[in-house]
């Protein structure tokens, strides 16, 4: 028996032993940094910051066609659909809807012509936005209800007639809560 134990191992036995030992070793683990949780955190932070900035001030670029009036109001802005009335055009969420002539709407753009108040092309676009916002409200339950809020960024020279026509058209599309975007008075001085 003792002689058998001291017998040198054959090449096949050595190879089998090496294979067994190798199998016992843990598999090579990749030592890299998992960046997915970090990306999630960064995305959440980015969304939070964008929403924060959007609530604090409107993103408005002033030009010769768009000069925003000053006001003593200190009311904060909410996130809502934006309508811009410059001297040359009306845009909804940054997309041009109709052109203006010195801030006036062409009678051909209104239901009933010159004496009309409903701006047909604007009405068509805001109806689409209303339906989209209502669909979002329906999907989100009570978290984002449709409030009919609009913020109006208008050139200070816009005639009251044009403003009335825009407000009337918005009202016909269930947008009844209006906020005028102004510059705070202290920035003027």
């Amino acid at each position: 028996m003792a002689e058998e134990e001291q017998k040198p191992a054959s090449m096949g036995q050595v190879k089998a032993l090496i294979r067994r030992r190798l199998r016992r070793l843990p598999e090579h683990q990749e030592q890299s940094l998992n960046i997915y949780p970090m990306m999630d955190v960064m995305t959440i932070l980015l969304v939070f910051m964008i929403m924060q900035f959007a609530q604090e001030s409107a993103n408005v670029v002033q030009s010769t066609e768009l000069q925003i009036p000053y006001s003593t109001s200190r009311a904060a802005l909410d996130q809502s659909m934006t309508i811009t009335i410059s001297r040359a055009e009306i845009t909804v969420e940054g997309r041009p809807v109709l052109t203006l002539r010195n801030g006036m709407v062409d009678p051909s753009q209104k239901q009933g012509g010159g004496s009309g108040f409903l701006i047909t092309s604007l009405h068509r676009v805001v109806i689409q936005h209303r339906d989209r916002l209502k669909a979002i409200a329906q999907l989100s339950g009570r978290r984002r209800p449709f409030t009919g809020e609009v913020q109006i960024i208008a050139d200070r020279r816009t005639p009251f007639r044009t403003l009335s026509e825009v407000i009337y058209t918005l009202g016909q599309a269930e947008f009844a809560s209006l906020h005028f975007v102004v510059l705070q008075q202290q920035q003027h001085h």
Partner: protein
Amino acid sequence: MRNGQQDWGELTTCARRVKLQFEDENQVILSADPEVEFGDIIAAMDALRGDNDLFPNILLSAGVR
């Protein structure tokens, strides 16, 4: 009007006089001629609001013309 410019301070004074008579009232209806500029509408709203102690709820009316 003063020197061809609107006297918004005078409008605030007038609103203050009205407020003294109707202390519980917070609303005011603002209307204007079609050619009045938006900047003047905002100035009138500021004048009527005062320091939020006069008429903070301002309703815009296009009027019937």
